[in-house]
């Protein structure tokens, strides 16, 4: 038997690299210098105090973070964090090199699954979206695709969290208007986990928060960041940077600002509670300078997201990115083209979470049909990501000899075995002309609509398994929140 010689290498996946080591270092130095020289505004006293205590210069709300403090913070970032579903089963590892695609939070509008018209997002949509995402094989985590309009003003976040967490076993990402609502969401997590310590051991959701570009950690964002850090709730702290408007129009400059403002959250969280999980990155795209809209289908979104993923991983942090989004108003060719571009780019760089699958119209309308389309595209991109296995079996030299020139492979055992590995479309149509004609000539959109409606109607999700006493606890938390919010509005 022959042995393989030394120094063989294998590409388990495609090789993709956007930035060179030198470029990464240059951008990193830009970030370090920005945090030290320009600084950032931090609207939370406790956060400023801890920064000051560790050697940051504080002037009013402005904080200047020297490099040694940044390094200290990066030192305690956890390399891996495990997430669980409400049933306590592991469903995600937040670490570099594992990728989970999901929808995005909070658009005001939603495409009605029946009428296909744009309307306000309703409470019933939140659990439906959770169920559909739970069912889609390539969607790795759940978010809402809208902000609920038919509950008490100011509690959209809490109702969404309460409904979604029960309707999925996949990881859940939740946002909050303010720290009070974040606390209530935490309480719901605790109720489901079975106690505070149980939640600490097995966190069952990720909190999502946003600083403001350029370089402002506003009160709500940083209050929530502080709360999550102390309570060990894994959190995303990422800006929504608009190239040419809230950050420089040059891509490298955008990345410098976006990374700097996100790192403020990392530093605050690590200093307050070393080892707590913080994910950074964030929505990166450009202001369309003709239409004055934030472009979600722009190729620059893919380019900058890829670069930022490399940068964030370079400094040892998990990345929160985006894909599968579009600027279209209804399902059409552009929806597919834009989504495919960004999904593939994301796949190649491998961020940890990739949000906004299902965002349309500049992030103003959530569209579950787009998510279903994206699920298929993600499946296709995974095939490329899977690379090619090269070994004696796959080289099939033996089979080639057996069949010889002019034969066929259809009857080979080898074919039976390996053809199973081929990707099978659930939406892409490969019918013969005649079959397609007989079926009524369905377009891609028709097939997406059919599949989505099937899932909405027939996929149940796990919510019926939530014990009734826990359901009661959740209802109580919601009732108390109602009282809290109503009490507040009477004060006004």
């Amino acid at each position, binding site marked *: 038997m022959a042995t393989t010689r030394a120094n063989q290498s294998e590409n388990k996946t495609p090789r993709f690299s956007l930035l060179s080591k030198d470029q990464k270092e240059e951008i990193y130095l830009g970030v370090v210098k920005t945090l030290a020289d320009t600084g950032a505004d931090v609207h939370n006293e406790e956060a400023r105090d801890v920064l000051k205590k560790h050697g940051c210069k504080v002037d009013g709300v402005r904080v200047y973070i020297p490099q040694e403090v940044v390094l200290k913070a990066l030192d305690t970032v956890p390399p891996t964090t495990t997430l669980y579903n409400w049933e306590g089963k592991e469903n995600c590892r937040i670490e570099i090199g594992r990728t989970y695609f999901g929808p995005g939070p909070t658009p005001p509008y939603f495409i009605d699954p029946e009428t296909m018209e744009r309307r306000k997002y309703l409470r019933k949509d939140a659990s439906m979206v959770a169920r559909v995402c739970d069912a889609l094989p390539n969607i790795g985590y759940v978010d809402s695709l809208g902000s609920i309009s038919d509950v008490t003003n100011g509690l959209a976040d809490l109702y969404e969290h309460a409904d979604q967490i029960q309707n999925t076993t996949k990881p859940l990402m939740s946002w909050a208007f303010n720290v009070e609502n974040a606390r209530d969401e935490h309480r719901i997590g605790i109720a489901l986990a079975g106690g505070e310590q149980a939640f600490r051991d097995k966190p069952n959701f990720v909190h999502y928060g946003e600083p*403001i570009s350029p370089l402002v950690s506003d009160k709500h964002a940083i209050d929530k960041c502080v709360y999550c850090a102390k309570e060990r709730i894994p959190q995303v702290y990422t800006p929504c940077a608009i190239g040419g408007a809230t950050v420089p129009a040059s891509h490298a400059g955008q990345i410098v600002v976006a990374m700097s403002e996100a790192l403020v959250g990392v530093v605050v969280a690590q200093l307050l509670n070393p080892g707590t999980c913080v994910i950074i990155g964030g929505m990166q795209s450009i202001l369309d*300078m003709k239409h004055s809209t934030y472009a979600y289908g722009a190729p620059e979104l893919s380019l900058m997201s890829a670069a930022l993923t490399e940068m964030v991983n370079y400094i040892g942090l998990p990345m929160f990115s985006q894909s599968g989004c579009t600027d279209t108003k209804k399902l059409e060719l552009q929806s597919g083209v834009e989504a495919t571009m960004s999904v593939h780019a994301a796949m190649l760089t491998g961020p940890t979470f990739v949000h906004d699958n299902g965002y349309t119209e500049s992030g103003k309308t959530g569209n579950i049909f787009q998510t279903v389309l994206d699920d298929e595209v993600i499946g296709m991109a995974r095939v490329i990501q899977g690379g090619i296995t090269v070994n004696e079996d796959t080289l099939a030299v033996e089979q080639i000899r057996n069949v010889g020139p002019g034969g066929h492979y259809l009857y080979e055992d080898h074919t039976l075995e390996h053809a199973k590995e081929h990707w099978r479309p659930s939406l892409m149509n490969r019918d013969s002309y005649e079959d397609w004609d007989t079926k009524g000539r369905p377009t891609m959109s028709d097939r997406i609509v059919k599949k989505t409606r099937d899932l909405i109607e027939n996929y149940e999700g796990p919510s019926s398994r939530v014990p009734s006493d826990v359901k009661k606890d959740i209802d109580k938390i919601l009732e108390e929140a109602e009282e809290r919010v109503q009490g507040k509005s009477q004060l006004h």
Partner: protein
Amino acid sequence: MEEKLGSISQTLIEGKADELQKQVQEALDGGATPEDVMNQALVAGMDAVGQQWKAGDMFIPEVIRSAKAMSGAMDIIRPKLSESGGAGSGTFVIGTVLRDLHDIGKDLVAMMMEGAGFKVVNLGIDLDAEVFVDAVKEHKPDILGMSALLTTTMPQMGEVINALKEAGIRDQVKVMVGGAPVSEEYAEEIGADSYAPNAATAVDKAKELLQA
């Protein structure tokens, strides 16, 4: 003189602020009426900018340069117009409502309004109804603009309108609203006078309001 006014328009289109102020001053010193400078040079120039923007021949950073140049020229022209009894383009006050921190859209609208010749007061973000009421009392604007990007903060625009009513000054000012979740219907519902989906339309609508 016509040539001079034409070259003012051109300087405005090119967004050269200092040069524009110089040329405007020269034209006035040379005997041009403020009305002519305003209408034949500046308004004509900004109309051309608007058209080129809509056609995609100019893009926002260029348009903003012209708008800023326009604002500088108006600083010279405005006092002269009121001396001669002619109307300037009016005053526009704008801000983002309480608990809302989105500011870029509002800033864009503010700058485009400057470009349309308005005297603009940009109040900032996260503003109490009182701040709007006080600003209307203080600046006596022709139009009050409010921006809200969150469904939760939209109702605050209605609160401001109510506060204007309570202060007895609602009929002294036209109210214009905008922002991602705001719509024509919503504007009507809360009793605003006008809505625009973007900065370019906001300018058109503002001009309509002044004529009304």
